[in-house]
Protein backbone atom coordinates (compact mmCIF):
# COMPACT_ATOMS: atom_id res chain seq x y z
CA UNK A 1 0.00 0.00 0.00
CA UNK A 2 1.34 3.42 -0.86
CA UNK A 3 2.04 6.02 1.78
CA UNK A 4 -1.13 7.26 3.36
CA UNK A 5 -1.95 10.92 3.22
CA UNK A 6 -2.95 11.45 6.80
CA UNK A 7 -2.50 9.37 9.88
CA UNK A 8 -4.51 10.38 12.90
CA UNK A 9 -3.33 8.92 16.15
CA UNK A 10 -5.51 8.95 19.26
CA UNK A 11 -7.00 12.34 18.75
CA UNK A 12 -9.11 13.76 21.54
CA UNK A 13 -10.84 17.10 21.73
CA UNK A 14 -12.46 18.46 24.84
CA UNK A 15 -14.74 21.47 24.85
CA UNK A 16 -15.88 23.48 27.82
CA UNK A 17 -19.59 23.06 28.12
CA UNK A 18 -21.10 26.37 29.22
CA UNK A 19 -24.10 24.76 30.84
CA UNK A 20 -22.23 22.14 32.77
CA UNK A 21 -19.30 24.39 33.43
CA UNK A 22 -16.79 21.72 32.77
CA UNK A 23 -15.02 20.01 29.94
CA UNK A 24 -16.76 17.50 27.80
CA UNK A 25 -14.95 15.10 25.54
CA UNK A 26 -16.26 15.73 22.08
CA UNK A 27 -13.76 13.58 20.25
CA UNK A 28 -12.57 10.58 22.17
CA UNK A 29 -9.37 8.79 21.28
CA UNK A 30 -9.91 8.55 17.55
CA UNK A 31 -7.38 6.97 15.21
CA UNK A 32 -7.68 6.44 11.51
CA UNK A 33 -5.75 6.68 8.29
CA UNK A 34 -6.59 8.41 5.06
CA UNK A 35 -5.05 6.96 1.95
CA UNK A 36 -4.25 8.91 -1.16
CA UNK A 37 -7.08 9.22 -3.61
CA UNK A 38 -9.58 7.70 -1.22
CA UNK A 39 -13.11 8.90 -0.80
CA UNK A 40 -14.06 8.52 2.82
CA UNK A 41 -17.41 9.24 4.41
CA UNK A 42 -17.47 10.31 8.04
CA UNK A 43 -20.93 9.56 9.35
CA UNK A 44 -22.72 9.95 12.62
CA UNK A 45 -25.67 11.77 14.04
CA UNK A 46 -25.55 15.45 14.94
CA UNK A 47 -23.37 16.08 17.90
CA UNK A 48 -21.20 13.06 17.28
CA UNK A 49 -18.17 15.25 16.91
CA UNK A 50 -17.56 14.88 13.19
CA UNK A 51 -17.18 18.56 12.43
CA UNK A 52 -15.27 19.37 15.58
CA UNK A 53 -12.82 16.61 14.85
CA UNK A 54 -12.00 17.67 11.33
CA UNK A 55 -11.90 21.34 12.10
CA UNK A 56 -9.65 20.85 15.09
CA UNK A 57 -7.38 18.72 12.99
CA UNK A 58 -7.04 21.43 10.44
CA UNK A 59 -6.72 24.12 13.07
CA UNK A 60 -9.94 25.94 12.32
CA UNK A 61 -12.15 24.83 15.18
CA UNK A 62 -15.10 27.14 15.59
CA UNK A 63 -15.47 26.99 19.33
CA UNK A 64 -12.50 27.27 21.58
CA UNK A 65 -11.66 23.71 22.54
CA UNK A 66 -10.37 23.25 25.97
CA UNK A 67 -7.85 20.58 25.32
CA UNK A 68 -6.50 18.93 22.23
CA UNK A 69 -4.57 15.75 22.62
CA UNK A 70 -3.09 13.17 20.34
CA UNK A 71 -1.43 13.83 17.07
CA UNK A 72 -1.79 13.59 13.34
CA UNK A 73 0.82 13.28 10.67
CA UNK A 74 0.38 14.38 7.10
CA UNK A 75 2.53 12.98 4.32
CA UNK A 76 2.68 15.40 1.48
CA UNK A 77 4.91 15.70 -1.54
CA UNK A 78 7.04 18.16 0.36
CA UNK A 79 7.70 15.67 3.09
CA UNK A 80 6.00 14.62 6.20
CA UNK A 81 4.88 16.94 8.92
CA UNK A 82 3.16 16.47 12.18
CA UNK A 83 0.09 18.40 12.91
CA UNK A 84 -0.08 19.04 16.55
CA UNK A 85 -3.52 20.52 16.77
CA UNK A 86 -2.91 24.09 17.74
CA UNK A 87 -5.02 26.41 19.82
CA UNK A 88 -7.40 27.92 17.33
CA UNK A 89 -7.64 31.49 16.26
CA UNK A 90 -3.96 32.14 16.04
CA UNK A 91 -3.42 34.23 12.99
CA UNK A 92 -0.74 32.19 11.27
CA UNK A 93 -0.67 29.62 8.52
CA UNK A 94 0.04 25.99 9.22
CA UNK A 95 3.72 25.67 9.90
CA UNK A 96 5.94 23.46 7.77
CA UNK A 97 3.18 22.39 5.47
CA UNK A 98 2.35 24.11 2.28
CA UNK A 99 -0.55 26.38 3.13
CA UNK A 100 -3.54 25.21 1.26
CA UNK A 101 -2.55 21.54 1.34
CA UNK A 102 -6.01 20.88 2.74
CA UNK A 103 -9.26 22.43 1.64
CA UNK A 104 -12.47 22.67 3.61
CA UNK A 105 -15.92 23.14 2.18
CA UNK A 106 -18.03 24.60 4.96
CA UNK A 107 -21.52 23.58 5.78
CA UNK A 108 -23.15 26.88 4.92
CA UNK A 109 -21.74 28.14 1.66
CA UNK A 110 -23.03 31.66 2.10
CA UNK A 111 -21.21 31.92 5.40
CA UNK A 112 -18.04 30.49 3.93
CA UNK A 113 -17.78 33.31 1.43
CA UNK A 114 -17.02 36.89 2.27
CA UNK A 115 -20.16 38.87 1.46
CA UNK A 116 -18.13 41.96 0.69
CA UNK A 117 -15.92 40.49 -1.98
CA UNK A 118 -16.75 39.30 -5.44
CA UNK A 119 -16.68 35.62 -6.19
CA UNK A 120 -13.86 36.00 -8.64
CA UNK A 121 -11.67 37.76 -6.14
CA UNK A 122 -12.18 35.07 -3.54
CA UNK A 123 -11.31 32.25 -5.92
CA UNK A 124 -8.34 34.25 -7.12
CA UNK A 125 -7.03 34.57 -3.58
CA UNK A 126 -6.96 30.81 -3.43
CA UNK A 127 -5.26 30.56 -6.77
CA UNK A 128 -2.55 32.91 -5.63
CA UNK A 129 -1.52 30.41 -3.00
CA UNK A 130 -0.86 27.76 -5.59
CA UNK A 131 0.72 30.21 -8.01
CA UNK A 132 2.34 32.93 -5.99
CA UNK A 133 4.01 34.60 -8.91
CA UNK A 134 1.02 34.92 -11.17
CA UNK A 135 -0.07 38.36 -12.32
CA UNK A 136 -3.49 39.75 -11.58
CA UNK A 137 -4.70 38.94 -15.04
CA UNK A 138 -3.47 35.39 -14.79
CA UNK A 139 -5.08 34.99 -11.42
CA UNK A 140 -8.38 36.13 -12.79
CA UNK A 141 -8.04 33.74 -15.71
CA UNK A 142 -7.39 30.83 -13.41
CA UNK A 143 -10.26 31.86 -11.19
CA UNK A 144 -12.68 31.84 -14.09
CA UNK A 145 -11.25 28.52 -15.16
CA UNK A 146 -11.96 27.03 -11.75
CA UNK A 147 -15.46 28.38 -11.81
CA UNK A 148 -16.03 26.53 -15.04
CA UNK A 149 -14.51 23.38 -13.57
CA UNK A 150 -17.21 23.39 -10.93
CA UNK A 151 -19.79 23.46 -13.69
CA UNK A 152 -20.98 27.01 -13.23
CA UNK A 153 -22.56 28.44 -16.35
CA UNK A 154 -21.04 31.66 -17.71
CA UNK A 155 -18.16 31.64 -15.28
CA UNK A 156 -16.78 35.06 -16.16
CA UNK A 157 -20.13 36.63 -15.41
CA UNK A 158 -20.39 34.75 -12.14
CA UNK A 159 -16.92 35.92 -11.16
CA UNK A 160 -18.19 39.48 -11.00
CA UNK A 161 -21.06 38.62 -8.69
CA UNK A 162 -21.23 38.87 -4.93
CA UNK A 163 -22.12 35.83 -2.85
CA UNK A 164 -25.59 37.01 -1.93
CA UNK A 165 -26.52 37.09 -5.59
CA UNK A 166 -26.01 33.36 -5.97
CA UNK A 167 -28.40 30.51 -5.40
CA UNK A 168 -27.57 27.88 -2.81
CA UNK A 169 -26.27 25.40 -5.32
CA UNK A 170 -24.16 27.99 -7.07
CA UNK A 171 -22.71 29.21 -3.81
CA UNK A 172 -21.81 25.70 -2.86
CA UNK A 173 -19.97 25.25 -6.12
CA UNK A 174 -18.13 28.50 -5.61
CA UNK A 175 -17.11 27.35 -2.15
CA UNK A 176 -15.79 24.16 -3.68
CA UNK A 177 -13.88 26.17 -6.24
CA UNK A 178 -12.37 28.34 -3.54
CA UNK A 179 -11.28 25.23 -1.66
CA UNK A 180 -9.90 23.48 -4.71
CA UNK A 181 -8.09 26.40 -6.26
CA UNK A 182 -5.19 26.01 -3.88
CA UNK A 183 -4.69 22.56 -5.37
CA UNK A 184 -4.95 20.72 -2.09
CA UNK A 185 -4.20 17.08 -1.48
CA UNK A 186 -7.08 16.70 0.93
CA UNK A 187 -10.56 18.09 0.62
CA UNK A 188 -12.92 17.92 3.54
CA UNK A 189 -16.54 18.63 2.68
CA UNK A 190 -18.81 19.30 5.63
CA UNK A 191 -22.39 18.29 4.89
CA UNK A 192 -22.07 19.35 1.27
CA UNK A 193 -25.58 18.31 0.46
CA UNK A 194 -27.59 19.62 3.39
CA UNK A 195 -30.01 22.32 2.54
CA UNK A 196 -29.83 21.69 -1.16
CA UNK A 197 -32.53 20.50 -3.48
CA UNK A 198 -32.59 16.84 -4.29
CA UNK A 199 -31.45 17.35 -7.86
CA UNK A 200 -28.80 19.84 -6.91
CA UNK A 201 -27.57 17.37 -4.37
CA UNK A 202 -26.78 14.79 -7.02
CA UNK A 203 -25.07 17.34 -9.16
CA UNK A 204 -22.82 18.47 -6.37
CA UNK A 205 -21.93 14.90 -5.49
CA UNK A 206 -21.18 14.03 -9.08
CA UNK A 207 -19.08 17.11 -9.30
CA UNK A 208 -17.11 16.19 -6.23
CA UNK A 209 -16.56 12.66 -7.48
CA UNK A 210 -15.38 13.89 -10.84
CA UNK A 211 -13.04 16.46 -9.39
CA UNK A 212 -11.67 13.94 -6.98
CA UNK A 213 -10.93 11.65 -9.84
CA UNK A 214 -9.31 14.34 -11.94
CA UNK A 215 -7.19 15.82 -9.21
CA UNK A 216 -6.32 12.61 -7.45
CA UNK A 217 -7.62 14.17 -4.26
CA UNK A 218 -8.35 12.51 -1.01
CA UNK A 219 -11.89 13.40 -0.24
CA UNK A 220 -13.42 13.25 3.20
CA UNK A 221 -17.14 13.83 3.34
CA UNK A 222 -18.77 14.62 6.63
CA UNK A 223 -22.38 13.68 6.31
CA UNK A 224 -25.39 12.11 7.87
CA UNK A 225 -26.90 11.57 4.46
CA UNK A 226 -26.51 8.00 3.36
CA UNK A 227 -27.19 8.67 -0.28
CA UNK A 228 -23.86 10.44 -0.22
CA UNK A 229 -22.24 7.37 1.23
CA UNK A 230 -23.82 5.06 -1.24
CA UNK A 231 -23.07 7.30 -4.14
CA UNK A 232 -19.39 7.98 -3.91
CA UNK A 233 -17.74 6.72 -0.76
CA UNK A 234 -15.00 4.08 -0.82
CA UNK A 235 -14.73 3.84 2.90
CA UNK A 236 -16.89 4.71 5.88
CA UNK A 237 -15.92 5.98 9.31
CA UNK A 238 -18.67 5.89 11.88
CA UNK A 239 -18.52 8.21 14.84
CA UNK A 240 -20.72 7.85 17.88
CA UNK A 241 -20.44 10.32 20.72
CA UNK A 242 -16.91 11.14 19.73
CA UNK A 243 -15.69 7.59 19.48
CA UNK A 244 -14.86 5.83 16.25
CA UNK A 245 -16.99 2.71 16.27
CA UNK A 246 -16.58 1.41 12.76
CA UNK A 247 -14.02 1.85 10.03
CA UNK A 248 -14.35 -0.13 6.87
CA UNK A 249 -15.09 -0.33 3.16
CA UNK A 250 -18.49 0.69 1.94
CA UNK A 251 -19.55 -2.81 1.15
CA UNK A 252 -18.82 -3.95 4.65
CA UNK A 253 -20.73 -1.03 6.09
CA UNK A 254 -23.85 -1.85 4.16
CA UNK A 255 -23.66 -5.58 4.81
CA UNK A 256 -25.80 -6.45 7.80
CA UNK A 257 -24.61 -9.14 10.13
CA UNK A 258 -22.42 -9.79 13.10
CA UNK A 259 -19.45 -8.10 11.42
CA UNK A 260 -20.83 -4.61 11.71
CA UNK A 261 -21.39 -2.23 14.56
CA UNK A 262 -24.94 -2.12 15.95
CA UNK A 263 -24.99 1.65 15.62
CA UNK A 264 -24.35 1.43 11.90
CA UNK A 265 -27.27 -0.90 11.70
CA UNK A 266 -29.45 1.49 13.66
CA UNK A 267 -28.50 4.37 11.39
CA UNK A 268 -29.27 2.41 8.28
CA UNK A 269 -32.58 1.21 9.64
CA UNK A 270 -33.62 4.77 10.36
CA UNK A 271 -32.68 5.99 6.94
CA UNK A 272 -34.45 3.09 5.27
CA UNK A 273 -37.60 3.80 7.25
CA UNK A 274 -37.41 7.47 6.33
CA UNK A 275 -36.98 6.70 2.66
CA UNK A 276 -39.81 4.26 2.59
CA UNK A 277 -42.07 6.53 4.49
CA UNK A 278 -42.36 4.24 7.49
CA UNK A 279 -42.13 5.50 11.05
CA UNK A 280 -38.59 5.08 12.36
CA UNK A 281 -37.92 2.04 14.52
CA UNK A 282 -38.29 2.87 18.19
CA UNK A 283 -35.03 3.83 19.87
CA UNK A 284 -34.01 1.60 22.71
CA UNK A 285 -33.41 2.99 26.11
CA UNK A 286 -31.44 0.77 28.40
CA UNK A 287 -29.60 2.14 31.39
CA UNK A 288 -26.51 4.02 30.27
CA UNK A 289 -23.11 2.98 31.42
CA UNK A 290 -20.59 5.23 33.05
CA UNK A 291 -18.80 7.57 30.72
CA UNK A 292 -15.28 6.39 30.13
CA UNK A 293 -15.85 3.06 31.80
CA UNK A 294 -18.30 1.33 29.51
CA UNK A 295 -19.27 1.19 25.89
CA UNK A 296 -20.88 4.51 25.02
CA UNK A 297 -23.51 2.85 22.88
CA UNK A 298 -24.75 0.55 25.58
CA UNK A 299 -27.97 2.46 26.22
CA UNK A 300 -29.24 2.07 22.67
CA UNK A 301 -27.64 -1.18 21.67
CA UNK A 302 -29.95 -3.69 20.04
CA UNK A 303 -27.49 -6.49 20.65
CA UNK A 304 -27.67 -6.02 24.40
CA UNK A 305 -31.21 -7.32 24.41
CA UNK A 306 -30.11 -10.68 23.06
CA UNK A 307 -26.69 -11.02 24.66
CA UNK A 308 -25.64 -13.27 27.50
CA UNK A 309 -25.34 -11.72 30.89
CA UNK A 310 -21.62 -12.17 31.02
CA UNK A 311 -21.34 -10.39 27.68
CA UNK A 312 -23.61 -7.62 28.87
CA UNK A 313 -21.46 -7.12 31.88
CA UNK A 314 -18.41 -6.70 29.76
CA UNK A 315 -20.17 -4.04 27.72
CA UNK A 316 -21.01 -2.20 30.89
CA UNK A 317 -17.60 -2.33 32.42
CA UNK A 318 -15.14 -1.96 29.58
CA UNK A 319 -14.73 0.38 26.68
CA UNK A 320 -14.41 -1.50 23.39
CA UNK A 321 -11.52 -0.73 21.09
CA UNK A 322 -11.43 -1.11 17.35
CA UNK A 323 -10.86 -4.69 16.37
CA UNK A 324 -10.02 -5.55 12.79
CA UNK A 325 -12.04 -8.17 10.97
CA UNK A 326 -11.38 -9.08 7.41
CA UNK A 327 -10.33 -6.69 4.71
CA UNK A 328 -9.40 -3.41 6.43
CA UNK A 329 -12.59 -3.41 8.43
CA UNK A 330 -12.52 -2.57 12.10
CA UNK A 331 -15.37 -2.48 14.56
CA UNK A 332 -15.43 -1.40 18.18
CA UNK A 333 -17.90 -3.78 19.73
CA UNK A 334 -17.44 -6.72 22.07
CA UNK A 335 -20.35 -8.48 20.49
CA UNK A 336 -19.11 -8.34 16.92
CA UNK A 337 -17.67 -11.31 15.19
CA UNK A 338 -16.02 -12.02 11.94
CA UNK A 339 -18.77 -12.17 9.36
Amino acid at each position, binding site marked *: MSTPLLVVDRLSVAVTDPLLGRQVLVVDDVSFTLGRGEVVALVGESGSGKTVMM*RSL*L*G*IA*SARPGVLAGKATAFTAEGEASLAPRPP*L*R*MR*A*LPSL*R*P*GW*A*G*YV*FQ*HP*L*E*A*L*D*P*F*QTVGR*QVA*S*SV*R*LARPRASKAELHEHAVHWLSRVALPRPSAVAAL*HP*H*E*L*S*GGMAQRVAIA*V*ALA*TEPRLLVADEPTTGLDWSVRREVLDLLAELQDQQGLTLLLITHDFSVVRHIADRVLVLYRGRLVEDGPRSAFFTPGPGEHPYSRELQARVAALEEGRPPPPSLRAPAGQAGLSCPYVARCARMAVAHESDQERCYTQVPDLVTFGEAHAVACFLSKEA
Partner: protein
Amino acid sequence: MVFGALLWSVPGASERAAEAGAHSLLGWVVSFWKGVLVGDLGRSYRGVPVFEMVGRGALRSLPLIGAALMLSLGSGILLVIVLGDRLGAMGRVLRMAAHALSLCPVFLLGYLALVLFAVPPEGAGQNLAAIAILAIGDGMLSDVLLGLDAEFKRLRQRDFVQSARLRGSPVWPHFVPHLALPLAQIAASRTAWLIGGVLVLEMVLGIQGLGLIGYRAADTADLPLLVAITVFVTAIVAGATLSVDVLRVLVDPRVRKDRRATGREVT
Protein backbone atom coordinates in the same frame (compact mmCIF):
# COMPACT_ATOMS: atom_id res chain seq x y z
CA MET B 1 -32.08 56.96 8.27
CA VAL B 2 -35.06 59.18 8.02
CA PHE B 3 -35.08 60.16 11.64
CA GLY B 4 -31.82 61.96 11.13
CA ALA B 5 -33.59 64.51 9.02
CA LEU B 6 -36.35 64.78 11.57
CA LEU B 7 -33.91 65.47 14.33
CA TRP B 8 -32.96 68.60 12.55
CA SER B 9 -36.27 70.15 13.32
CA VAL B 10 -35.69 69.71 17.06
CA PRO B 11 -39.20 70.15 18.33
CA GLY B 12 -37.79 70.42 21.81
CA ALA B 13 -36.13 73.73 21.13
CA SER B 14 -39.35 75.45 20.21
CA GLU B 15 -40.92 74.25 23.40
CA ARG B 16 -38.21 75.84 25.41
CA ALA B 17 -38.67 79.18 23.79
CA ALA B 18 -42.39 79.09 24.46
CA GLU B 19 -41.86 77.96 28.02
CA ALA B 20 -39.70 80.91 28.82
CA GLY B 21 -42.43 83.16 27.59
CA ALA B 22 -40.84 84.18 24.32
CA HIS B 23 -42.58 85.11 21.11
CA SER B 24 -45.24 83.20 19.27
CA LEU B 25 -44.11 79.69 18.61
CA LEU B 26 -44.53 79.37 14.92
CA GLY B 27 -43.24 82.81 14.15
CA TRP B 28 -40.19 82.14 16.16
CA VAL B 29 -39.45 78.83 14.52
CA VAL B 30 -39.76 80.36 11.09
CA SER B 31 -37.51 83.27 11.86
CA PHE B 32 -35.00 80.93 13.41
CA TRP B 33 -34.64 78.78 10.36
CA LYS B 34 -34.55 81.79 8.14
CA GLY B 35 -31.73 83.00 10.26
CA VAL B 36 -29.86 79.75 9.87
CA LEU B 37 -30.01 80.03 6.14
CA VAL B 38 -28.75 83.54 6.22
CA GLY B 39 -26.14 82.91 8.88
CA ASP B 40 -27.72 85.26 11.34
CA LEU B 41 -29.03 83.64 14.48
CA GLY B 42 -29.77 86.79 16.34
CA ARG B 43 -27.89 88.33 19.11
CA SER B 44 -27.22 86.86 22.44
CA TYR B 45 -28.33 88.78 25.40
CA ARG B 46 -24.87 90.04 25.67
CA GLY B 47 -24.97 91.62 22.31
CA VAL B 48 -22.52 89.44 20.48
CA PRO B 49 -23.95 87.77 17.42
CA VAL B 50 -24.93 84.23 18.25
CA PHE B 51 -23.61 82.77 15.08
CA GLU B 52 -20.16 84.04 15.81
CA MET B 53 -20.22 82.72 19.34
CA VAL B 54 -21.37 79.29 18.30
CA GLY B 55 -18.79 79.28 15.57
CA ARG B 56 -15.98 80.19 17.89
CA GLY B 57 -17.05 77.67 20.45
CA ALA B 58 -17.40 74.95 17.88
CA LEU B 59 -13.98 75.66 16.51
CA ARG B 60 -12.59 75.14 19.95
CA SER B 61 -14.58 72.10 20.94
CA LEU B 62 -15.04 70.06 17.81
CA PRO B 63 -11.36 69.41 17.12
CA LEU B 64 -11.03 68.18 20.67
CA ILE B 65 -13.91 65.80 20.19
CA GLY B 66 -12.59 64.59 16.87
CA ALA B 67 -9.11 64.02 18.19
CA ALA B 68 -10.42 62.26 21.26
CA LEU B 69 -12.48 59.94 19.09
CA MET B 70 -9.47 59.10 17.03
CA LEU B 71 -7.31 58.54 20.05
CA SER B 72 -9.89 56.33 21.66
CA LEU B 73 -10.59 54.26 18.60
CA GLY B 74 -6.95 54.16 17.67
CA SER B 75 -5.81 52.83 21.01
CA GLY B 76 -8.72 50.46 20.97
CA ILE B 77 -7.72 49.11 17.61
CA LEU B 78 -4.17 48.81 18.77
CA LEU B 79 -4.97 47.01 21.96
CA VAL B 80 -7.69 44.75 20.68
CA ILE B 81 -6.94 44.03 17.09
CA VAL B 82 -3.33 44.51 16.34
CA LEU B 83 -1.99 43.20 19.57
CA GLY B 84 -4.92 40.96 20.29
CA ASP B 85 -3.95 37.88 22.18
CA ARG B 86 -0.32 38.35 21.52
CA LEU B 87 0.67 40.18 24.64
CA GLY B 88 -0.55 37.51 27.00
CA ALA B 89 -0.46 38.39 30.67
CA MET B 90 1.03 41.81 30.05
CA GLY B 91 -1.79 42.54 27.64
CA ARG B 92 -4.39 41.58 30.19
CA VAL B 93 -2.86 43.87 32.77
CA LEU B 94 -2.80 46.68 30.27
CA ARG B 95 -6.43 46.13 29.41
CA MET B 96 -7.45 46.05 33.03
CA ALA B 97 -5.58 49.25 33.69
CA ALA B 98 -7.34 50.87 30.75
CA HIS B 99 -10.72 49.80 32.06
CA ALA B 100 -9.91 50.99 35.56
CA LEU B 101 -8.73 54.36 34.36
CA SER B 102 -11.80 54.68 32.22
CA LEU B 103 -14.02 54.41 35.25
CA CYS B 104 -13.02 57.88 36.36
CA PRO B 105 -15.47 60.59 35.52
CA VAL B 106 -14.15 63.18 33.13
CA PHE B 107 -14.42 65.90 35.70
CA LEU B 108 -12.27 63.92 38.07
CA LEU B 109 -9.57 63.34 35.52
CA GLY B 110 -9.63 67.00 34.60
CA TYR B 111 -9.48 67.98 38.23
CA LEU B 112 -6.55 65.72 38.91
CA ALA B 113 -4.80 66.97 35.83
CA LEU B 114 -5.30 70.51 37.03
CA VAL B 115 -4.29 70.12 40.63
CA LEU B 116 -1.77 67.35 40.52
CA PHE B 117 -0.13 67.87 37.21
CA ALA B 118 -0.41 71.56 36.80
CA VAL B 119 -1.86 71.53 33.34
CA PRO B 120 -1.40 75.02 31.97
CA PRO B 121 -4.45 77.17 31.32
CA GLU B 122 -3.75 77.48 27.63
CA GLY B 123 -1.86 75.97 24.78
CA ALA B 124 -0.77 72.61 23.54
CA GLY B 125 -0.35 71.03 26.95
CA GLN B 126 -3.92 71.75 27.82
CA ASN B 127 -5.19 70.48 24.49
CA LEU B 128 -3.27 67.28 24.77
CA ALA B 129 -4.48 66.69 28.28
CA ALA B 130 -8.04 67.43 27.25
CA ILE B 131 -7.90 65.04 24.33
CA ALA B 132 -6.47 62.27 26.45
CA ILE B 133 -9.00 62.79 29.21
CA LEU B 134 -11.91 62.84 26.82
CA ALA B 135 -10.68 59.73 25.11
CA ILE B 136 -10.48 57.80 28.34
CA GLY B 137 -12.83 59.10 31.00
CA ASP B 138 -16.49 58.55 31.69
CA GLY B 139 -16.14 55.00 30.55
CA MET B 140 -15.31 56.00 27.01
CA LEU B 141 -12.24 53.87 26.54
CA SER B 142 -13.92 50.99 28.30
CA ASP B 143 -16.85 51.02 25.95
CA VAL B 144 -14.64 51.29 22.91
CA LEU B 145 -12.49 48.39 24.04
CA LEU B 146 -15.45 46.20 24.86
CA GLY B 147 -17.21 47.02 21.63
CA LEU B 148 -14.15 46.36 19.51
CA ASP B 149 -13.40 43.20 21.38
CA ALA B 150 -16.87 41.84 20.79
CA GLU B 151 -16.83 42.72 17.10
CA PHE B 152 -13.41 41.30 16.60
CA LYS B 153 -14.23 38.05 18.31
CA ARG B 154 -17.38 37.72 16.31
CA LEU B 155 -15.57 38.33 13.09
CA ARG B 156 -12.84 35.83 13.83
CA GLN B 157 -15.39 33.07 14.20
CA ARG B 158 -16.90 33.54 10.83
CA ASP B 159 -16.41 30.82 8.31
CA PHE B 160 -14.88 32.92 5.60
CA VAL B 161 -12.19 34.09 8.00
CA GLN B 162 -11.50 30.52 9.03
CA SER B 163 -11.41 29.54 5.40
CA ALA B 164 -8.77 32.15 4.71
CA ARG B 165 -6.70 30.96 7.66
CA LEU B 166 -6.84 27.39 6.50
CA ARG B 167 -5.79 28.22 3.00
CA GLY B 168 -3.04 30.42 4.27
CA SER B 169 -4.61 33.38 2.59
CA PRO B 170 -4.09 36.74 4.29
CA VAL B 171 -6.85 37.52 6.69
CA TRP B 172 -6.63 41.33 6.80
CA PRO B 173 -8.42 41.98 3.51
CA HIS B 174 -11.38 40.32 5.14
CA PHE B 175 -11.09 42.14 8.44
CA VAL B 176 -10.75 45.69 7.30
CA PRO B 177 -14.01 46.11 5.38
CA HIS B 178 -15.95 44.14 7.93
CA LEU B 179 -14.64 46.16 10.84
CA ALA B 180 -15.14 49.52 9.19
CA LEU B 181 -18.88 49.60 9.83
CA PRO B 182 -18.82 48.55 13.47
CA LEU B 183 -16.03 51.05 14.05
CA ALA B 184 -18.08 53.82 12.53
CA GLN B 185 -21.06 52.76 14.58
CA ILE B 186 -19.04 52.88 17.76
CA ALA B 187 -17.64 56.25 16.79
CA ALA B 188 -21.08 57.69 16.12
CA SER B 189 -22.56 56.53 19.38
CA ARG B 190 -19.53 57.67 21.30
CA THR B 191 -19.80 61.12 19.76
CA ALA B 192 -22.89 61.86 21.78
CA TRP B 193 -21.14 60.70 24.88
CA LEU B 194 -18.13 62.85 24.13
CA ILE B 195 -20.22 65.96 23.80
CA GLY B 196 -21.32 65.49 27.36
CA GLY B 197 -17.74 64.94 28.41
CA VAL B 198 -16.54 68.02 26.61
CA LEU B 199 -19.12 70.10 28.40
CA VAL B 200 -17.79 69.09 31.77
CA LEU B 201 -14.15 69.19 30.88
CA GLU B 202 -14.34 72.68 29.45
CA MET B 203 -15.74 73.87 32.70
CA VAL B 204 -13.08 72.16 34.74
CA LEU B 205 -10.17 73.29 32.65
CA GLY B 206 -11.62 76.59 31.61
CA ILE B 207 -11.56 75.91 27.88
CA GLN B 208 -13.58 78.44 25.90
CA GLY B 209 -15.46 75.92 23.92
CA LEU B 210 -19.06 75.18 23.11
CA GLY B 211 -19.67 73.51 26.45
CA LEU B 212 -18.57 76.44 28.54
CA ILE B 213 -20.44 78.92 26.40
CA GLY B 214 -23.53 76.77 26.56
CA TYR B 215 -23.32 76.48 30.32
CA ARG B 216 -23.01 80.20 30.72
CA ALA B 217 -25.91 80.66 28.38
CA ALA B 218 -27.97 78.30 30.49
CA ASP B 219 -26.95 80.12 33.62
CA THR B 220 -27.91 83.52 32.35
CA ALA B 221 -30.95 82.22 30.51
CA ASP B 222 -29.52 83.53 27.30
CA LEU B 223 -32.13 81.95 25.13
CA PRO B 224 -31.05 82.66 21.58
CA LEU B 225 -27.61 81.38 22.31
CA LEU B 226 -28.92 78.39 24.17
CA VAL B 227 -31.25 77.38 21.43
CA ALA B 228 -28.60 77.78 18.79
CA ILE B 229 -26.22 75.58 20.70
CA THR B 230 -28.86 72.95 21.29
CA VAL B 231 -29.68 72.80 17.63
CA PHE B 232 -26.03 72.64 16.75
CA VAL B 233 -25.36 69.79 19.10
CA THR B 234 -28.34 67.88 17.81
CA ALA B 235 -27.13 68.46 14.30
CA ILE B 236 -23.74 67.00 15.12
CA VAL B 237 -25.24 63.90 16.66
CA ALA B 238 -27.67 63.44 13.82
CA GLY B 239 -24.90 63.98 11.34
CA ALA B 240 -22.80 61.31 12.96
CA THR B 241 -25.59 58.77 12.86
CA LEU B 242 -26.45 59.63 9.30
CA SER B 243 -22.84 59.17 8.28
CA VAL B 244 -22.90 55.64 9.55
CA ASP B 245 -25.92 54.86 7.43
CA VAL B 246 -24.26 56.44 4.44
CA LEU B 247 -21.16 54.41 5.08
CA ARG B 248 -23.15 51.24 5.25
CA VAL B 249 -24.57 51.83 1.82
CA LEU B 250 -21.13 52.51 0.46
CA VAL B 251 -19.41 49.53 1.97
CA ASP B 252 -21.91 46.71 2.04
CA PRO B 253 -22.59 45.33 -1.40
CA ARG B 254 -25.72 43.62 -0.17
CA VAL B 255 -27.39 46.91 0.63
CA ARG B 256 -26.12 48.50 -2.54
CA LYS B 257 -27.39 45.80 -4.80
CA ASP B 258 -30.76 45.63 -3.12
CA ARG B 259 -31.41 49.19 -4.03
CA ARG B 260 -30.74 48.55 -7.68
CA ALA B 261 -31.70 44.98 -8.33
CA THR B 262 -35.17 43.63 -8.73
CA GLY B 263 -34.96 42.51 -5.15
CA ARG B 264 -34.44 38.92 -6.04
CA GLU B 265 -33.06 37.79 -2.74
CA VAL B 266 -32.00 34.30 -3.69
CA THR B 267 -30.89 31.87 -1.07
